[in-house]
């Protein structure tokens, strides 16, 4: 896979606008001014970065727990010969938002997001029943602050 080509302005946008996009009537004009761009130019740059896949999204990132919902990370050990079948079963739950194969005995790791915290345990029970495998629940106990920037 070839990485997306970025010029210096693309990099400045990605490094500088991961947080702090303005909340005002003309936010592109305001954010653009700090980068030496007009509002139109910044808007067109961000649209282009989205189209080219350099950005996965643009907008607010909400804190799921503060919506009153449940969120956890869970893992299971899928036998190799049933791996794809188990993946389909896990993915069939709308509450499973992300699922990654990883190279470990715990070879399947997924994020469960539910409308209510109590529903997490139910979904885990249902996944255990459907797959016939134990699911290990690894809910976050504490989250550590991350510097906002992922530097490119």
């Amino acid at each position, binding site marked *: *896979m070839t*990485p*997306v080509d970025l010029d210096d302005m693309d990099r400045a946008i*990605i490094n500088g*606008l991961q*947080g*702090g*996009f303005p*909340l005002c*009537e*003309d*936010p*592109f*004009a305001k954010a653009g001014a700090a980068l030496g761009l007009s509002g*139109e130019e910044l808007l067109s740059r961000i649209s282009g970065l989205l189209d080219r*896949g*350099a*950005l996965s*999204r*643009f*907008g*607010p*990132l*909400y*804190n*799921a*727990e*503060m919506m009153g919902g449940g*969120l956890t*990370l869970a893992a299971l050990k899928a036998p190799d010969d049933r791996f794809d079948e188990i*993946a389909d079963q*896990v*993915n069939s739950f709308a509450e*499973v*938002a*992300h*699922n*990654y*194969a*990883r*190279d*470990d*005995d*715990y070879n399947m*790791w*997924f*994020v469960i*997001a539910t409308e209510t915290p109590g529903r997490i345990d139910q979904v885990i029970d249902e996944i255990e029943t459907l797959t016939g495998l134990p699911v*290990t629940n*690894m809910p*976050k*106990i*504490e*989250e*550590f*602050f*991350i*510097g906002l920037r*992922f530097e*490119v």
Partner: protein
Amino acid sequence: MSKYLDMPLDRTDRRIIKATQGGLGLSLRPYDAVAMEVGVDTGEVIRRMKRMRDAGVIRRLGVVPNHYSLGYLANGMTVWDVPDDKITELGSRIGAFDFVSHCYHRPRHLPDWPFNLFCMVHGHDRSEAEHHAGEIAALLGEDNRGHKILFSTRILKKTGLRLVA
């Protein structure tokens, strides 16, 4: 956690969340479209989103880079066994590394899972991610009682979190 109760979200807030959880529209005045959808004026959308940002309901507002397409192909979940009584201090220091995108204290599951600190690291390839894990190990010193890296080999599912239906 305490922030939960400081700011109950009302119906209008939830409609704003619903209108923006998939992203902001690409127009010069993006909050106008949100206001139209929610049925309030633009100033009200801006006031409410500022309040949500200040309360931490909005973690951040801006561009979200796609690690993979930017060439950071190795996504390693590093997991560490560190003393519980020092984990807050250690986790905070690790979170300051710019190659770490998430850092959490999670429960151990003994005997086969002694790890209580999870840090996502990103590199252009596995050896770069392993080098980053080495930097974390150096920071932890004797507090590192065991660790490993679980590289992702396949994305099996990836949907945006739908927080409000």
